[in-house]
């Protein structure tokens, strides 16, 4: 009887321990909600999601690489590279007489294809030439920065089709209380009539891709192999997994997500520049680690990574609304980052 109670107690503790990020996120949100008026509202939650979109994507990119025991330092500048390419292409296509929608879709498709190249090169360097991931991806960071600065020549892209901004800053669902709903398109209502906007397009777009790849990671053989490689690379190759192919694939997924983030950046801010993602690298890696992945590989889930992103994004929005200087964020992210790893050292059985 006693043991049963103890066991149940331990289970409760274990559940909290395993999901401490979620608990922390709730506490954090509660803290800001109590201290800041109007924080616990639909708009603020959507704002957190909206401004966090790029970091969601970069963190997912980083997660795949970190599961294999690597690191991808280039994601931030691959994002910048993608913003430069897609914005330039949109301007060119639109000026050549393509319809705005056609120009946008074509440039997005081309950017996504070109965005695979840095990942492919990274993968080949890491898998075939045995360059440490840190060095290979730092080299790629330099190359991407150089190439995008060369393409940009110091001038951020201008004159993008306005439709890009409309899509990027639009919402998925609009509700006009009492008169109806509409998808994707802002209803024509008189000024002053309240329109409830639900889920920004950018977030929907990002979450669809994140969900697809979360499925790939957990439910497919490819995903299982990635965990196997990160857990023990020798065992994985003895078990007949083509390790090199998988690692190349993982780095390509990473740069695919980074270019996706770049495209979303262009649609949101209607510009493209080489250092668009420079400051997001810390956030992306921190989110993955806060989400419980190990830098040595073999563990980490998309769901927890997103929680990690939310911890950082809530912090940033909360601090901004409280009027504290935003650079306090860096201190707190650093502290949370270290704290996470120390917690997991002390309670190793909390891990899955």
């Amino acid at each position, binding site marked *: 009887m006693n043991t049963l109670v103890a066991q149940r107690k331990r289970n409760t503790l274990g559940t909290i321990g395993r999901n401490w990020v979620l608990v922390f996120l709730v506490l954090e949100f509660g803290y800001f909600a109590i201290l800041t008026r109007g924080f616990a509202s639909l708009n603020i939650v959507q704002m957190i999601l909206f401004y966090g979109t790029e970091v969601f994507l970069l963190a997912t990119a980083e997660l795949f690489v970190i599961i294999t025991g690597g690191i991808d*330092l280039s994601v931030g500048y691959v994002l910048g590279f993608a913003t430069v390419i897609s914005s330039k292409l949109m301007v060119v296509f639109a000026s050549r007489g393509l319809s705005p929608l056609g120009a946008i879709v074509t440039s997005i498709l081309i950017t996504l294809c070109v965005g695979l190249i840095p990942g492919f090169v990274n993968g080949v360097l890491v898998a075939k030439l045995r360059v440490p991931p840190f060095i290979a991806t730092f*080299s790629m960071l330099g190359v991407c920065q150089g190439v995008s600065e060369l393409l940009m020549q110091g001038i951020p892209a201008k004159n993008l089709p306005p439709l890009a901004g409309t899509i990027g800053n639009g919402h998925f669902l609009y509700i006009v209380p009492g008169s109806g709903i509409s998808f994707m398109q802002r209803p024509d209502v008189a000024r002053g009539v309240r329109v409830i906007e639900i889920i920004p397009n950018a977030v929907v777009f990002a979450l669809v891709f994140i969900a697809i790849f979360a499925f790939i990671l957990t439910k497919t053989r490819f995903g299982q192999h990635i965990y196997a490689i990160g857990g023990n690379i020798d065992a994985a190759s003895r078990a007949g997994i083509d390790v090199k192919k998988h690692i190349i694939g993982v780095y390509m997924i990473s740069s695919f997500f980074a270019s996706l983030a770049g495209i979303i950046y262009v649609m949101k801010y209607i510009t493209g520049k080489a250092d668009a993602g420079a400051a997001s690298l810390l956030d992306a890696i921190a989110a993955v680690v806060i989400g419980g992945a190990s830098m040595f590989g073999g563990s980490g889930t998309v769901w927890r990574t997103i929680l990690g992103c939310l911890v950082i994004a809530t912090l940033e929005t909360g601090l901004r609304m409280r009027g504290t200087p935003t650079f306090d964020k860096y201190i707190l992210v650093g502290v949370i*980052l270290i704290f996470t790893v120390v917690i997991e050292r002390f309670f190793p059985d909390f891990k899955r």
Partner: protein
Amino acid sequence: MPRPQMPHDTPTPFVQTRTGKLLGRHWALFFLLGMMAIFAFTGPGFFEVVNFQNIIHLATISILLAVAETFVIITGGIDLSVGFVMGLSSTLAARIMVTLGSTGMGEPMLIVLGTLAGLLVAFIPGFISGTLVARFKVPPFIATLGMWGICNGITLHLCDGFLPIAGLPSVLPRLGNGYLFYIHKGQSFTLFKKPDYIPDERVRELIRLVPFSFILIAAVVLVFWYILHKSKFGQHTYAIGGNIDAAIRAGIDVDRHLVKIYMLSAFLAGLAGVFNVFQTGIGNYTTFSSMYELFAVAAVVIGGASLLGGKGRIVGSMVGVLVLAVLKNGLAISGVQPFVRYIAVGVLLTLAVIIDQLFPDLF
């Protein structure tokens, strides 16, 4: 009777011949010399004493950070915080000088106190990352990335957002950019100070030799070369990087040693920060896109160290820094767009590691 074909009968591959090994071991040096030869033709004014002096003077911070990173990388770790520890020291030193200056304290006292504060504060992040790595077994990447964020935040607090701290004693940049010898051709020769009869605008007529920064670099490199290659501390550093379990069994207090290594690294970063104040005359925060830590790691790796630990030399890292510095200066003088440098550094770095893989048994 024909001899059976034995594996060792195949011709020795180039990488195992004497020349091959020599080239492989010192490829960065040969690369540096080759690059200088090319720039001598493409860049007017590249191959001059004054220009070389400039290259090294401007690379002082990179050299200090690379020495710091060499120690950490030899133990198999990495210190991502050096760039921001540098910013912290720089802004704190400047802030203290400005604050004390407003109380009317004398300039020499002010500078001494500011410098000391800048140097001492660096030990704190070093101690914390070292403790996290050694006692709490936090991976160095994470521990120092955390310090990266914390130092950056505190630095930005010190400089009220994104404003460099100005209003420091004007003697600072003169000290930081001073020279040992000033020669006015055929007329005068002075030590430490330019001759009084030449105003600031005409200072370019002088031949200025041996910047003070050389003395700092020489002292740091000599001291840390001695520590790494001649002292027990250095031996233990290599032992930990080579095989940490063996080092523990051999009775080395690994935890303590690692804390010391990270403190040493942060101290050098602090020195770089204080030097930065002397060089620029203001307290600079570190920007995101400067990536000091990554370039320091790049220099160390080009200099032949391995990120897995156990390998690396101070002189090699110096060559690594010079390769990057000469590349930057030479490309600029040759009129190549500055962005090309990023690409060149990237390609070079990967090349360094691939060459390193080709010669596995060298170092």
